[in-house]
């Protein structure tokens, strides 16, 4: 009989913090600088340089810890993790081993079987490494230290996940929480959120953990799904064929859809951690904690509840709008200008998301102002423009953030709902369509559609269809 296996997964998630400067020096963290322009003696590990902690890094780390129900370590410090690698100019990475800033947290995720708690072992602060580019032509590697010293937090979960779906739900939860805190934009594809997956398999019912492997280099939810399924299968095959799973780090190759060994895992003692003597310990006061707590913004769950209660928005709308913090902020700003909440939600979930997708933009890229969306909604509500014209105007608002009122006037798009002006055109089209009139009088009520269509065409879409319908029926008796 075939054995049944259970997958046991823990995650190490690295998140790049949204600070202006690096963790221990005043170099910029901005993307896209020419190689090595954002460097100084501190982030290139020059002897005698003195690292000093960026206060914002500590504030973000504590904010994430509080939002994920962690205990904040009141006396925390940095340690040196020693290893030789060209992307690490100091020959050690400054990290936290002994007294990480946050411990013993958890987040709740939604699974097919209901709510599930995923425990967080710890969150620590550390610095990123430089970037290595392989020079194919000369068979050498090139190093750019602009990323060296960029602040990261590493969120280490307990091995509480059992499937790819749970892993993705956990990552989504972290991403949403951290985005709401403003601590990072958490973009997997751009590397500001990176997940290392620790995975082992064991027979169902066994309490003992199997030997785990660690997979790095997974940069999309789809890749995570594939990597987990692939590695589970690989480990089961090893066991079924009587071999052992070797503890090692494997690199996931999304193009080949397989993982290969990267290096056998060093033991923690090989890193020869010791306290960094250049950095002073961190003592967290009650005041500091209270301040960070008071700055915590309204999180997604609270917003979903409030949008339903305060704005009478359907739960579905509230969930979609709040799934991107910038979208939620934009929604609230537009509603604050007096726009109808459901209408704002419709424009965001409909045309805005459609155009973002069409143009390959992220959902946090909203290229127009709340003022102009509010103004467009006002024009539709007072009958100044009809819905098809509104869509046309919206495309311009999306493309160039135009002022809808001005645009409508300049292009003569105002609705013709003046019955006097429309009556002449309607009479003309009735006279030109005796067949439709005959059918209508014969009981085919839909036949007047042809006349409405011709009036719309004549007025270049500006006539109000309701008014046109009403006039036709009135004239035909």
């Amino acid at each position, binding site marked *: 009989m075939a054995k049944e296996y259970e997958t046991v997964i823990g995650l190490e998630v690295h998140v790049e913090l949204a600070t202006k400067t690096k963790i221990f020096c005043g170099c910029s963290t901005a993307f896209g600088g020419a190689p090595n322009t954002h460097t100084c003696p501190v982030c290139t590990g020059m002897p005698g340089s003195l690292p000093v902690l*960026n206060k914002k890094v500590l504030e973000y780390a504590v904010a994430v810890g509080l939002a994920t129900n962690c205990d904040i370590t009141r006396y925390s410090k940095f340690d040196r993790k020693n290893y030789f690698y060209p992307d690490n100019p100091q020959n050690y990475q400054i990290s936290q081993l002994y007294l990480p800033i946050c411990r013993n947290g958890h987040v709740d995720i939604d699974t097919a079987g209901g709510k599930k708690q995923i425990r967080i072992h710890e969150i620590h602060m550390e610095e990123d490494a430089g970037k290595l580019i392989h020079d194919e032509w000369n068979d050498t590697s*090139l190093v750019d230290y602009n990323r060296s010293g960029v602040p990261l937090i590493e969120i280490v979960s307990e091995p509480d996940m059992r499937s790819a779906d749970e892993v993705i739900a956990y990552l989504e939860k972290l991403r949403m929480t951290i985005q709401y805190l403003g601590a990072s934009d958490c973009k997997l594809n751009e590397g500001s959120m990176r997940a290392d997956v620790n995975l082992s398999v064991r027979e169902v019912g066994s309490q003992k953990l199997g030997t785990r492997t660690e997979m790095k280099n997974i940069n999309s939810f789809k890749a995570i799904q594939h990597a987990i399924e692939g590695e589970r299968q690989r480990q089961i095959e090893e066991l079924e064929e009587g071999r052992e799973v070797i503890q090692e780090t494997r690199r996931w190759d999304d193009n080949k859809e397989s993982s290969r060994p990267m290096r056998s895992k060093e033991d923690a003692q090989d890193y020869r951690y010791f306290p960094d003597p250049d950095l*002073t310990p961190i003592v967290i006061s009650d005041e500091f904690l209270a301040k960070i707590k008071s700055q915590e913004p309204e999180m997604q769950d609270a917003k979903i509840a409030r949008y339903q209660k305060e704005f009478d928005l359907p739960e579905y709308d509230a969930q979609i709008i709040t799934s991107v913090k910038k979208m939620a902020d934009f929604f609230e700003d537009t509603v604050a200008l007096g726009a109808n909440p459901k209408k704002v939600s419709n424009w965001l979930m409909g045309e805005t998301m459609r155009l973002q997708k069409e143009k390959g933009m992220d959902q946090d890229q909203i290229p127009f102002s709340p003022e102009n969306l509010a103004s467009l909604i006002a024009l539709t509500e007072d009958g100044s423009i009809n819905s098809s014209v509104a869509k046309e105007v919206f495309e311009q608002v999306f493309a160039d953030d135009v002022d809808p009122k001005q645009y409508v006037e300049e292009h003569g798009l105002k609705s013709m709902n003046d019955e006097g002006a429309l009556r002449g055109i309607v009479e003309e089209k009735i006279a030109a369509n005796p067949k439709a009139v005959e059918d209508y009088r014969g009981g085919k009520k839909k036949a007047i559609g042809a006349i409405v269509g011709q009036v719309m065409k004549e007025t270049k879409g500006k006539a109000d269809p309701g008014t046109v319908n009403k006039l036709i029926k009135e004239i035909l008796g």
Partner: protein
Amino acid sequence: MANVISDETMEYVGILAKLELTGEEKENARKDLEKMLDYVDKLNELDVSGVEPMSHIFPVNNVFREDEVTNGDGSKDTMANAPAQKDNQFIVPKTIG
């Protein structure tokens, strides 16, 4: 002289430290390391229960800086240390993560 460091350990420590030692250097290093371990054994005789591990030698905490860019383009000084360079980057032996 209770501690004896094996050849394997000496080899392994050498790899971690990226040091290639001659036979004589290795023997000297082995003696030094053994003495250090003996000294640690001596320290271990002390009763330190209830003593917090020291994490810093000065009684100074919470030295922070504000999140403001204070450094400009440092590439000229940084690259001045490069034994070999290309397009403002350090050339190193082929390294694949």
